[in-house]
């Protein structure tokens, strides 16, 4: 009898259940129903323009990451001295404006759909936290522009953050600290939240209409 055959025994299955790798693989395989990570079919009730704003938000997020990546290659001061850099900064600014416009419409749409129904509370929570995190990320971007806006916004914002004790650890007057938060910490957290949000959407599917029954 081969070892592989032995693994099919009760003893083998018990060993598998104790194997961390097997357990993680099983968990990942069962996170999203088969074929639903990239489905080619959707429930018939998914028929409204409001659904477009989720994917538009995701698309804008990628444009933000791409334009921000180019700005990072040029360095913190590049966009002040280069026409090309200034144009890339414009791309970064307007993609952020579009991102928020799409996200707010998406958020309102999901609110009116009561999209947290049917075990989707965590989907709503990850989306709402991503929205708040996006505000923080954009805020740190304004602080790292190293221009008049940065000076004024930093001087004003410090009072709000200091008033609740946050400013002692998150110093908006230190552009070096804010730059690292803006290009590393917050985008990473936001990226994780976005991925988790999308996985949860794919896991549970699109929320059915209120009071609908299975067909």
């Amino acid at each position, binding site marked *: 009898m081969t070892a592989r055959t032995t693994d099919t025994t009760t003893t083998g299955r018990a060993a598998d259940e104790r194997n961390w790798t097997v357990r993680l693989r099983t968990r990942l395989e069962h996170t999203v129903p088969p074929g639903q990570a990239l489905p080619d079919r959707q429930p018939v009730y998914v028929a409204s323009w409001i659904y477009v704003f989720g994917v538009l938000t995701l698309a804008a997020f990628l*444009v933000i990451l791409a*334009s921000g990546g180019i700005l990072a290659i040029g360095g913190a001061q590049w966009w002040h001295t280069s026409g090309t850099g200034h144009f890339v900064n414009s791309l970064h600014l307007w993609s952020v404006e579009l991102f928020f416009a799409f996200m707010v419409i998406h958020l309102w749409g999901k609110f*009116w759909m009561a999209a947290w*129904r049917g*075990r989707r509370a965590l989907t709503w929570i990850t989306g709402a936290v991503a929205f708040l995190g996006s505000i923080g990320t954009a805020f740190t971007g304004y602080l790292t522009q190293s221009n008049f806006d940065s000076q004024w916004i930093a001087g004003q914002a410090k009072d709000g953050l200091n008033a609740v004790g946050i*400013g002692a650890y998150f110093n908006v007057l230190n552009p070096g600290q804010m730059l690292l938060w803006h290009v590393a910490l917050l985008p990473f957290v936001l990226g994780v939240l976005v991925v988790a949000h999308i996985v949860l959407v794919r896991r549970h599917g699109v929320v059915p209409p209120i009071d609908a029954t299975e067909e």
Partner: protein
Amino acid sequence: MSTVTPAQQRIPRPRTGGSYSTPRDGTPDSHGFATRPYDLVKEFVIALVVVTLATVGLSLVFSSPDEKAISMRDWAIAAPNDVVATATGELAGTTTSATYGPPYNTASDGQKLGPLPLQKWGGVRIPVDSARDLVVTPLSTGASDPALRAALGIWNSTPAARQTAWATAYADALAKAPDGDPAKVPTGDYGPVPRMAGSFLTLARGGGLEGELTSSGNFYGGDQTRSLLLLSDGAFLEDQARARHLGGDQWGMMNETGNYPGQPWMWLYTFWYQIEPFSSSDNADALVWGLMMVLSAALVLLPFIPGLRSIPRWIPVHRLIWRDYYRRHPATPTPAAPAAGSAPPPGPA
């Protein structure tokens, strides 16, 4: 969107290790509905192209604002009397930064959120002695003028109470002088303060003040805390900001320079500063932050808050969103007759 093609094909349910039960709120499993063809990747690619083109178009048409930062030299040339008054205020301990409290010093406890001294609890983690760090040390570093060195010698060997008396007297005299002009200040017992403040203006006008404030002895000076505190202590920065409609009472927190949208997503945070009791409270920042924390928590935890989570059922915007579905399923209960299971809280996602 594709044409609806009723199909009996069902989407597989997520496997959770056990049987898939109906949620407590009665919402049926989305995987149990009929489906139609849908090209998710194609939709995403089209969205990416559209957003990219829109971004490029907006950038080409509107560009982006980049108003040069105010340098200490700009400040000294445009508003020399303000620089002298600010330096004197730092020496007297009367500026905003000198009286701020945590995280810069212990001059006050700072703002409170009700009974909670959150600002004090944050601690003095970014210590700044406004007189020493913003004026005396920059003046001392590389001071070659014998008169200035003598003035600094007198200042440093004098008790703090006397230092404060000199600086306060000179600050009062400046405030009474026409346009705050140091040349029009009458003679008085100001000690070395006029010499120090005048030299401070000379240092700023020569462009050497930034380096003294930001380097802090480090070749790679990247922390602007001291220079921004000093600039904010003066009136020039705020005057410039208010002229651009960036003041706190001008909805300034969501604006930026030029005719650009700024941060419209900050509208609610900015709104509170425009109304009572926040607009006149000494604890406005703490109160607004506290309120926004509560509202943010409510947004995040909305699925669990009775009443709020029922608003979409009471105001049936969803009838518009899913109008095709409701048209094809006229038997679906109306919001006036909620389905069973709608009241209990949602189960864990």
